[in-house]
């Protein structure tokens, strides 16, 4: 089981062993070291990048936190300061309005104290004037747009020197009052000063239709007044419609609307009055009538219309869209001053009735289902019911252009409820409200004017409110916030970029290391392979040559020389081999020369012997008797056998020395066998053998050294003849198979044991060792035959014993084992 995966080192060549050892000893540790180094570097780098990233993230986090806290703190501080400043401005504004109104009380009482006189009234009318800012092209000059900056003259005052040039609005002085009248106890006007002159259009003001906008009912209130008591009306004026439309840049005021500050400064301005009245006694101390003074409402609006709760402080035209403006509400909560005049509640001058204020879509639908008129419905609506900015203003009223703000029913604006709440105790304050997508600070301050009906609540005349866009007074903090956020964002991006860069560098280093390690490993593997190959080639090449040389020598080619280049052990081995080969070759040559010389030298005495013996036997030396004749014949046989032996030795030595030269000629197998049989016929006959020849007629011609192949055939035949018991059978057969001609000689002789079937081709093979009886022969015939066949590129072999099945024509059995010799010759 284990053997299945076992590597047998003996199976590898020298190259394999060298490669394996080199790779195990040199490359494997290198690869392991490289891997460890690479992994450690990578881990270290990854950890460094992670820590840098974490540190950056923590820094960024704390920067964000600090920035946020700093901004929150500064916003809170700024908010607090700004809120306080705006609250104060609101409060002061309310005070000024109240003061202004009280001034009018004084005006009234002053007029009431004197006798009613048109001239006197006109004088008072003319003397009661006040400046207002009038709208006009602004700024008029370049200088107004960019007034020269006044610098501090003393360097010690330079720190945070802030100078604002004087406000240079275009102003006009207009009368405070629209009219001053004296009304008798029946309500008939007796004196009237209006439009700068004494008017003669005297009316009966007990009738509403004769009053301002047909809306005044003051005369009904007057009889209840005690002497010195003052009646003050609410704001009365004709309502002027206005339309808002949605535009890409925001809500826009349509030009046909009422005046709306910056948004529509061409529009018609709201015109209204507040009427003061007080009884007038005659000289007799009896009441003779009432003096009334109608304050031009413009002067009230003037308090709020130019206020800017920003650095700008004042403006010609307030901007309703910006949210930064001041406005005013009466004691009931109806709007009496606004940047957009169509928000000011007014009267329908045709009917003298109040135009109902703007309500929510829901409330408007409620009205539509009520069956009442809108005026009636509104009158019955509970104040401040379900106020929420989630509601939308009624579209029908927007289309009608009747958008007066009655804070009690404006249920889309919860801030109205806030102001009303806040002024309940006559105080002031502020709150934040998210309005029109902006956080708005809204302040309120009750106007502490308590004359007449205004004395009914601590709210007094009403309240001043200022709306301010929180973002605007956060501006400084917001700039800082934007800066900090930007710097944090940049820092974050820097950290992100640095982390990414670190990661990229780590990756690059990792890749470089990896390729360097792979490269070095591959180079060393290559180097090891080359070195192993070179070394093994140095060893194996000469070894292979030595092996080949030794093999060639074993096959008889003794002239071997190995190319020796190295001087190492292998070189020495090759050198020794060469020396050995040279020595062996020399010995062999000496042997061949010896045989040649010996055979020549032997022939001479044999010749002498043969001449004598043959001469005697031929009768050239006289008559000899029968016995001498027989003895000399024995001598002659011995001489002839000796001659054959010498010839065979000579052939053998020539074959072994590769001195045999082939003289190939085209011939037929028939010719060869014929010649062989001629030579051998007598011998065969002497042994009483039957020689059978089977040669198919269609055999092709062959190209061989005819004499030598004849000699082979003779050798094989004579071999069979000698080793077959008398009266045997010898079959000579030839056949053509593939590219070969196969010549066989089969006999029913003694046979050759298996162990000797190769050895029989060795020279002087001791036939005695396998034979029970001695047979004459040189012992060289088969060796010479093999040499000749080999020289022709063929082969020779023998088989024994033979089976009767294969050779039915050969009588086998007993000592007749049978042998077949097979010669293969290439065609």
């Amino acid at each position, binding site marked *: 089981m284990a053997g299945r995966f076992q590597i047998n080192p003996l199976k590898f060549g020298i190259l394999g062993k060298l490669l394996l050892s080199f790779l195990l000893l040199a490359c494997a540790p290198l690869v392991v070291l490289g891997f460890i180094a690479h992994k450690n570097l990578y881990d270290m780098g990854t950890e460094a990048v992670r820590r840098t990233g974490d540190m950056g993230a923590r820094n960024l986090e704390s920067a964000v936190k600090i920035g946020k806290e700093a901004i929150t703190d500064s916003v809170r501080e700024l908010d607090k300061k700004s809120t306080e400043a705006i609250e104060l401005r609101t409060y002061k504004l309310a005070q000024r309005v109240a003061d202004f109104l009280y001034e009018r009380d004084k005006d009234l009482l002053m007029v009431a104290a004197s006798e009613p006189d048109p001239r006197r009234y006109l004088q008072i009318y003319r003397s009661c004037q006040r400046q207002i800012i009038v709208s006009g092209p602004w700024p008029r000059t370049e200088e107004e747009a960019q007034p020269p900056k006044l610098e501090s003259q003393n360097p010690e005052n330079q720190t945070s020197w802030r100078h604002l040039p004087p406000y240079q609005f275009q102003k006009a002085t207009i009368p405070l009052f629209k009219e001053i009248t004296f009304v008798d106890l029946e309500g008939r006007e007796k004196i009237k000063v209006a439009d700068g002159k004494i008017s003669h259009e005297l009316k009966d003001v007990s009738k509403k239709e004769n009053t301002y906008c047909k809306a005044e009912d003051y005369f009904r209130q007057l009889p209840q007044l005690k002497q010195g008591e003052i009646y003050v009306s609410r704001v009365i004026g004709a309502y002027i419609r206005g339309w808002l439309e949605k535009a890409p840049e925001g809500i826009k005021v349509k030009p046909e609307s009422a005046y709306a500050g910056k948004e529509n400064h061409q529009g018609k301005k709201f015109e209204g009055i507040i009427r003061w009245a007080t009884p007038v006694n005659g000289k007799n101390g009896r009441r003779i009538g009432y003096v009334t003074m109608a304050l031009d409402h413009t002067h009230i609006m003037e308090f709020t219309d130019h206020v800017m709760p920003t650095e700008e402080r004042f403006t010609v035209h307030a901007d309703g869209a910006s949210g930064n403006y001041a406005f005013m509400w009466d004691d009931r909560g109806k709007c009496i001053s606004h940047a957009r005049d169509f928000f000011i509640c007014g009267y329908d001058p045709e009917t003298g009735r109040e135009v109902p204020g703007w309500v929510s879509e829901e409330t408007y639908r409620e009205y539509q289902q009520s069956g009442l008129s809108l005026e009636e419905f509104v009158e019955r609506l509970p104040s401040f019911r379900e106020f929420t900015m989630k509601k939308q203003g009624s579209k029908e009223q927007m289309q009608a252009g009747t958008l007066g703000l009655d804070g009690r029913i404006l249920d889309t604006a919860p801030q109205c409820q806030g102001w009303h709440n806040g002024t309940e105790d006559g105080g002031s304050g502020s709150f934040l409200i998210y309005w029109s997508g902006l956080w708005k600070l809204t302040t309120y301050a009750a106007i502490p004017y308590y004359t007449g009906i205004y004395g009914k609540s601590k709210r007094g005349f009403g309240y001043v409110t200022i709306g301010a866009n929180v973002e605007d007074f956060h501006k400084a903090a917001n700039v800082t916030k934007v800066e900090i956020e930007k710097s944090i964002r940049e820092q974050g991006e820097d950290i992100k970029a640095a982390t990414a860069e670190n990661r990229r560098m780590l990756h690059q280093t990792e890749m470089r290391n990896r390729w360097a390690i792979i490269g070095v490993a591959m180079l060393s593997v290559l180097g090891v392979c080359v070195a192993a190959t070179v070394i093994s080639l140095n060893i194996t090449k000469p070894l292979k040559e030595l092996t080949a040389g030794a093999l060639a020598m074993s096959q008889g080619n003794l002239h071997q020389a190995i190319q020796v280049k190295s001087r190492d052990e292998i070189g020495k081995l090759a050198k020794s081999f060469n020396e050995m080969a040279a020595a062996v070759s020399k010995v062999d040559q000496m042997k061949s020369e010896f045989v040649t010389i010996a*055979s*020549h*030298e032997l*022939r*001479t*005495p*044999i*010749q*002498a*012997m*043969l*001449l*004598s*013996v*043959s*001469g005697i036997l*031929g009768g*050239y*030396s006289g008559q000899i008797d029968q016995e001498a004749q027989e003895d000399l014949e024995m001598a*002659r046989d011995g*001489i002839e056998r000796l*001659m054959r032996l010498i*010839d065979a030795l*000579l052939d053998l030595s*020539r074959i072994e020395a590769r001195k045999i*030269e082939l*003289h190939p000629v085209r011939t037929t197998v028939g010719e060869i066998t014929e010649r062989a049989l001629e030579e051998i016929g007598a011998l065969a006959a002497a042994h009483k053998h039957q020689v059978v020849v089977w040669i198919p007629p269609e055999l092709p011609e062959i190209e061989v050294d005819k004499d030598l192949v004849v000699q082979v055939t003779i050798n094989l035949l004579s071999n069979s003849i000698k080793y077959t018991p008398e009266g045997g059978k010898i079959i000579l057969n030839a056949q053509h198979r593939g590219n070969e001609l196969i010549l066989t000689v089969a006999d029913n002789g003694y046979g050759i044991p298996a162990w000797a079937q190769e050895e029989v081709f060795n020279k002087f093979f001791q036939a005695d060792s396998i034979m029970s009886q001695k047979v004459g022969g040189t012992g060289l015939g088969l060796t010479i035959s093999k040499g000749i066949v080999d020289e022709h590129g063929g082969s020779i072999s023998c088989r024994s014993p033979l089976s009767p099945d294969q050779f039915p024509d050969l009588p086998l059995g007993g000592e007749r084992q049978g042998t077949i010799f097979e010669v293969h010759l290439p065609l």
Partner: protein
Amino acid sequence: MAIKKILIVDDEEPIYTYLQKKLTKLGFHVSVATDGEGALKQALNNLPDVILLDVKLPKLNGIEACKRLKADGRTRDIPVLFLSAKTQAKEIEEGLQAGAHKYLCKPISFPDILKEITALGESGESRLD
């Protein structure tokens, strides 16, 4: 033409002695030379009918001697029978190339040598006529 005069060229005393004795006994005029130069001299002096020439000879070897005999107009027509212990095919070829009539390999029996000489006489008759 019957062979009458034979020149034996051999450096082996037993061989030339035996041949001279037996051939003389058979009626031939036999002269002997024991080296190549001697062979050339004898051939010119005696102008034999046949020369039995050994190859391995002192001073001048048999092949060279044969070539000179064949080169000389006076001896050119004398048939040369090589009688040599050099029996390799190459050596036999060389001998025939030098102009010999036949190349006989030692050892050869006396009757065979005699047969060759007699045969030469019979064919020589027809050739010379």
